[in-house]
């Protein structure tokens, strides 16, 4: 048997939680091919020509939405963007009403972002097409975890045994939840660090070591992943001020020096410069993988869309 026998073949892509290691690796392997395709002058193929992809974004997003749009177009699909902050939802339509309406248009792939945890799962029960979770509330952002893993794998060869610190606002981060799950699946050692008000008290049971002191958290790390401080998601301010936050939880060169020599820096973006990360670190191409992450984003999304579409077409035969 080859890994091809274990390739990702689920009907939807809702989270890392439902994946096993061969499935995850099959997606990363395919994404590797799409990195090459995307670097060519002629980037588009007609592999999925005739299929329709709808990007359904209930939350405003620039980078994720355009990444999915480019991914779909490079595979030859017709891609339609629906920014719902301004249309039907504003008129009072529920999530399920919207889903049923779109389902009647026979899309093949529905890429969904919503501010409520569990929204993608709910939608997947109501439509006939494949659903891709592009971020649901504070739950999962599985394509972000895949692109982070691919970025690390291409930079360091393998994730096996790497020590990776995820620092910042863990409580409000779907990126952190998906990353902890995937990095564990790929046998990396995961650390979580943030002020206690931004780190769930039982996060140690997610499969990560918990730190509140960032100087200690980065010791021995190969990668330091910094998360965005999501002030907009906080009911009441969980930190006193951004200046205190930067002092104790901001990543600058001094703090990074406590990690392993050659340690790499990641950030899912958009960055709050001078709050969770110093520009000096974020913009240094020798240590920052931030722009690589964006490139890998398109590739892993092509892989996810491709495998979901392939599974559907095979099932239809």
């Amino acid at each position, binding site marked *: 048997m080859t890994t091809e026998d274990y390739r990702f073949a689920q009907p939807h892509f809702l989270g890392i939680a439902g994946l096993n290691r061969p499935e995850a690796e099959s997606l990363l392997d395919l994404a590797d091919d799409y990195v090459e395709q995307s670097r060519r002058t002629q980037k588009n193929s007609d592999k999925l020509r005739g299929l329709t992809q709808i990007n359904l974004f209930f939350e405003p997003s620039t980078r994720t939405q355009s990444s999915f749009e480019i991914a779909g177009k490079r595979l030859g699909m017709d891609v339609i963007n629906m920014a719902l902050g301004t249309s039907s939802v504003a008129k009072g339509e529920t999530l399920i009403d919207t889903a049923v309406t779109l389902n009647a248009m026979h899309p093949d792939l529905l890429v969904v972002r919503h501010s409520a945890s569990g929204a993608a799962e709910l939608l997947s029960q109501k439509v006939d097409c494949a659903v891709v979770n592009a971020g649901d509330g504070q739950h999962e952002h599985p394509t972000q975890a895949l692109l982070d893993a691919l970025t690390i794998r291409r930079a360091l060869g393998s994730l096996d045994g790497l020590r990776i610190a995820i620092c910042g606002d863990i409580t409000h981060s779907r990126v952190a939840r998906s990353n902890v799950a995937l990095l564990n699946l790929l046998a990396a050692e995961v650390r979580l660090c943030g*002020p*206690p*008000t931004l780190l769930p*008290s039982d996060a140690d049971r997610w499969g990560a070591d918990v730190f*509140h*002191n960032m100087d200690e958290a980065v010791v021995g790390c190969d990668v330091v992943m910094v998360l965005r401080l999501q002030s907009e998601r906080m*009911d*009441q*301010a*969980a*930190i*006193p*001020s951004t*200046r*205190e936050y930067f*002092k*104790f939880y901001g990543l600058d060169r001094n703090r990074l020096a406590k990690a392993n020599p050659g340690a790499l820096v990641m950030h899912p973006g958009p960055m709050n410069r001078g709050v969770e990360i110093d520009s000096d670190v974020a913009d240094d191409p020798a240590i920052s993988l931030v722009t690589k992450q964006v490139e890998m984003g398109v590739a892993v999304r092509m892989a996810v869309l491709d495998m979901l579409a392939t599974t559907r077409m095979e099932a239809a035969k």
Partner: protein
Amino acid sequence: MTQPILIQNARTIDPASGLDEVMDVLLADGVIAQVGTDIEHPSHAQIIDATALILAPGLIDLKVKTGEPGFEHRETLQSAGHAAAAGGVTTIVIAPDTQPVIDDAALVEYIRRSSRGTSLVNILPAGALTQGLHGEQIAEIGLMSEAGAVLFSNGDTGIPNADIMGKALSYAGAFNALVSCRPEDASLTGRGVMHSGELSSRLGLKGIPIAAETIAIARDIALAEYTGGRLLIDQVSSAAGIAMVRDAKAKGLEIYCTVSVHHLTLNELDVGEYRTFARLSPPLRAESDRQGLITALCDGTIDAIVSGHDPRPAEEKRLPFAESSAGACGLETLLSGALSLVHHGDAELSVVLGALTSGPADLLDLPAGRIAANAPADLILFDLEQPWVCDAGQLLSKSKNTPFDGRRMQGLTHATLVAGAVVFDREGRCK
């Protein structure tokens, strides 16, 4: 460099180690160099003959208000230092309720800097727990910790929003900071001015029910348990409240508490005929509450006795009771007041001294508060028996409000040493 001092023949009591013997103690370079009998004295050392006096660690007072900055007519850091030295208090923690509020690292640094050289005793700033003490947004606990704030308190006001109190406890945990909170439900306290009971109803004064305290204690204990924070409950006043603290400690929670010397020694009857000097916050409670607090002192539930020093000038006290300000001076009467518990047979001397020295030192992780080699030479000499009458007019504080005014006291500080230097010498024995 100060001259070495050899204190001879004092009954030396160190509550932390249980020492209680006639000993000699040699001080040099600001620390205790040697504790023993027949210490050979260096030729250049000053000798203090302390026969018939008790030598104990200097008192550490976790709850002191001055008026600096903002209300210097009440008290300055300098005048508070003089009062403290006369009362045998060698370290005071300054509450953040000043104008401006101490909610910024620069203000913590200001208190430290402006007390250096002007104050006779050690001054440690407490930082505000919430910005402006408004109870709405956590203050910069990390930056203030680095600047030297030793604990974080919301001053004399509670935090009404439980979520914010929980976040403060949780956040402080990252810096291992001690959070102190006054247990008071503001909606129940309302405009109350004294303990709610028969006396308040007879006097026609609005009462503050014990539930105002117990509800807040129950909430804050639950939040400390939920967040794993370290909580110092400031000035418990009721028997029911202290029983809740005892139960929380038995569960292994990091809950600590203080009680003011006034609540251990006075009760609601001291309000008498509308004496505004006895208007305190929290209010003096019933005798059964005072007895409950004494029991808690003896069984170790109370970690520290504080003065609750809150100087209020005459214009805030010479008013109808309900219009006067709450608060009492306490630094100069802290030791004598607490010693009355010993003289009445309510508590052992070592227990009382422990709650004034090593107890608060342990809460703040200070090396002071004990008599041992290399500990800071912050010491007091006092006469356990000496009778005197408290005269508010003689207080060194800028304000003269004490509920002990006119009261016969027993036990008096004779000398106070800070960092090995005599800063107060009542009878000239240290010359």
